[in-house]
């Protein structure tokens, strides 16, 4: 019940940050992004898939990420997304905003980021 509430409250503001962070490591396809978010949050953030793709397209339109169909030997082609330099900048600025937010939370409610 508690985790569900966190998920609902945070997911809207953090979706972009989550996606950009995952793509910072390496290019990934949509399903993998959803999987990673769920896995790394220990299931705390189960991604609402319907909003993943519109978010990806929006980020792509803003030039922060780039989607490209990649076909590998013996595999079906998949659409991979990679982080672009403007996306890297936005990611850095969002991280600092979230850092400041968690510092404020810690000071007020003694909540530290994991």
């Amino acid at each position, binding site marked *: 019940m508690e985790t569900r509430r966190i998920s609902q409250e945070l997911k809207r503001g953090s979706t972009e940050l989550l996606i950009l962070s995952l793509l910072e490591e390496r290019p990934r*396809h*949509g*399903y993998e992004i*959803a*999987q990673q978010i769920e896995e790394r949050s220990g299931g705390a953030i189960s991604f*609402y*898939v*319907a*909003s993943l*793709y*519109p978010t990806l*397209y929006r980020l*792509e*339109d803003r*030039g922060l990420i780039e989607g490209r*169909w990649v076909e590998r030997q013996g595999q*079906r082609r*998949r*659409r991979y997304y990679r982080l672009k330099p403007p996306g890297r900048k936005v990611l850095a600025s969002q991280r600092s905003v979230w850092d400041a937010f968690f510092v404020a939370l810690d000071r007020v409610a003694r909540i530290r980021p994991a």
Partner: protein
Amino acid sequence: MRSLSRSTASRASGRPEIFRKIMDWITRIRSSFDGRKCPDDDVIEELAQHAAAAYNAARADGCSSSEAEARISDQISRWAQDADLLHRRPSRAPAAEPPPASSRWGFGLVRDFRYALRLLRRQPGHTAAVLATIVLGVAVAGLLFSVTYGVLLKPLPWPDADQLVRLYETRQGSPRRPSLMTNASYLAWRENPATLEGLGAWSDSLMTLTGTGDPERITITEATPGLFSILRALPVMGRLFSPESGGKSDETEAILSHSLWEQRFGGRTDVLGRDIILDGRAYHIIGVMPASFAFPDRDTRAWLSFLVQPVVDPAHPEMRSLSMFAAIGRLRAGASAEQAAAEGTARVRGGPDPGLVAEAVFGVKGAPIVLAVPYLKSMTENVRQALLVFLAAVGLLLAVATGNVALLQLARGATRHREFAIRAALGAGSGRLMRQMLVENIVLGTIGGGLAIVLVGWLHHMLPILLPDDFPRAGEIAMDWRVAGFALALSLLASVMAGLLPALHTRRLNLAGTLAEDGSAPVGGGSRTATSRTRAIIMAAQVAMACVLLVGAGLLMRSFVAVAHADRGYDPENVLTARLAMPSTSFTDFQRAALLTRLIERLKVTPGVTNAAVAATIPLGQGRSMSAFTMTRKDGTIITARALQRLVSTDYFAALRIRLLRGRLFSDSDANLSAPAVMVVNRAFASQYFHDDAVGTPISQKFNEDRPGGSIIGVVENVSYGSVTAKAEPEYYMCTGQLSRGMAYDEPYLIARTHGSPANLLLSLRSILKEQDPLLVPESMMTMTDRLQSSLARPRLYSILLGGFAGFALLIAGVGLFGTLSYGVAHRAREIAVRTALGAAPRDIVILVASQALIVTACGAIVGVAAAAALVRLISSMLYGVTTRDPVSFTVVPLVVLFAAAIACMVPARRASRIDPNKLLH
């Protein structure tokens, strides 16, 4: 949507089960959007992959298939609810805003120019190749334009010159080319002509100028007083001939040309009223013409008054006197040349009949015909056709060159696709890209035009060497703004045309497509892709045009060889000729005859001389005399023979090695005043009048000057006195030794056959002439072969010119083929490497590359030979000894073209066969 299903289905066949599942998911997702806006195919596919992966993960987690299906169905229905967020991905906005085109158009253009210049500097090899092709092609075309404009189109320097008509006279059925007019026609028409404002006549001659400085032979034109008013010419000083002066034969007035006035009289103003001595006779100077006035051409240094004598002299009504000269008229306003000719013909037919003399002159007894030809056309009709043919040839040459530039630009365009793709990605529209390419070509065209202008200017200095001496209006050919403008416009046109193809390719720029296309461009220019098809068509067209030029050049060259080696009826080798100036004002007939006899005797004992003779005229010499007389055949019938008279000394036939066909030649015993009159005729005379049985035919009293009657003693081979292409006319030879007046010609020819080179005799001949008479001036001393060579200057020039154009075109086409093949081999290196790796032998690769090139060449050659067959009739009148269907030219040319193509593709083919798959494929 359908296309995705099809492509996915084709990909799915034979693949693992997962792919077929995705097909199902695609169908299910698409159907779940039923009634709502369906997302893009890409989005559907991406969602289907997600669904398939989620389904597989659920199954892997231990869910049953129905549980997993239910979980995914739930997700799909949520996607369908958010259709608005997914339905279409917005089109991508340009990463950078394009510059606002409308307001900064001029700035963009300047930037395009700068960019084009930078690009040209950055690729010096490509720039040099394009510029060299354009500059050479345009410079040759510019020079031909300059010659054509100066000779055929440039207005004559006289006011309203388009109303001037040259007047000729001929007879119905005359075999001779009309060139002059008779006094009978001129005088019959001169009074009150209806279609002409007036008539004028002139005649040129060479005279010796003495009295002021060294003696000099100059060209003098005798002109009727009306001639100057017809030309609307005025003197810069003094006056013209008054109309009356033409009517008095003892009037001796002279008008000086500006150049003679300056050269001989230092431009002094007190020259009027002084005398000028010509051929020992004094003429009163009455005027000086302006520097711009030249009539009939720049050779004329002074004008004397010309009196046209009547046909019937009132003092001797039984005599008929016919004279011939050049005539000109000025059309009245509204009258045409045809009307003038009709009036002239009618007036001449109403005039006095000059009788037998006219028959002799025209070679037939027919009704008179007068021709009126616009003066400019009459001056240039000998070269008009040749110039137009060469202009067309140069056009073809330029087209071949432009084709090469297009090939070069296409090749470079292919390597620039990446640049264009980036520009397009940055927001440049296809129009903007085309503009950039056109600007680049305009820059190339401008630079090329500028260089071509410089080259044309330089080539103008070469023209006097290139053009034959008798080329009409050669002095009018000049480098001016028209030629410069033409060269620049042509250069721009050629480069823009050549740049148009690659520019059009940028219109359908598609990065993935163009890259794929370029990668599979066939080596030799097959027809698998649009670019290679364009290349193949350009190359085939180049080969075809080169073929047309080569066939034309082949015919002209073979014709020239035929003319040069034609049997002229004499042997021009080892013969020295000299024209002697012996004017009647300085020599009486008797003195001249005696001097010539002494000269012959002296020459005969000169070492190295085998034969010496004199003649009134020689082959390729000047002067002709025509006669008409009656003769009685052996069967008693009387005929009128019209023939050219040749007055020669006894050794003439031996000196020129003219072959005797029947009877005998003149002997020394004939050469005295008491011997029976004898005549030698040519083969044409014998066959036309005596069915080849001429020897022994008695000749009339007219020829023997009260000497015992004689006969035709021999028949000799026809001799080409003028052009070898002219039909042989009846001729008869008279022996100078039999005539009491001797050589009654002012400018006889001396002929000497030598053992060795006749040039060795030049110095001795000069000293012999001086020794015999210090006043004797040799007008022209030339070997017979030199005369022959100079008479062949025009056909030689024509064959060299067209041969040069054809060779140049073949070279350009060959270089184009070579360049395109090299480019193709470089771009297909990987494919060739794969072929080699799969077992293709070097021979197979060579055949692969060469066969495609040779097929293109063969197609071009077939089209070219067919086009040449249709076009050669344009030069049919320039041919001699070959027909327009000459099998040699039409066979050799395709072989030469194929051979050139084989050479052009040898290097790229060998390079292709040496591609090492180990280095390329890894």
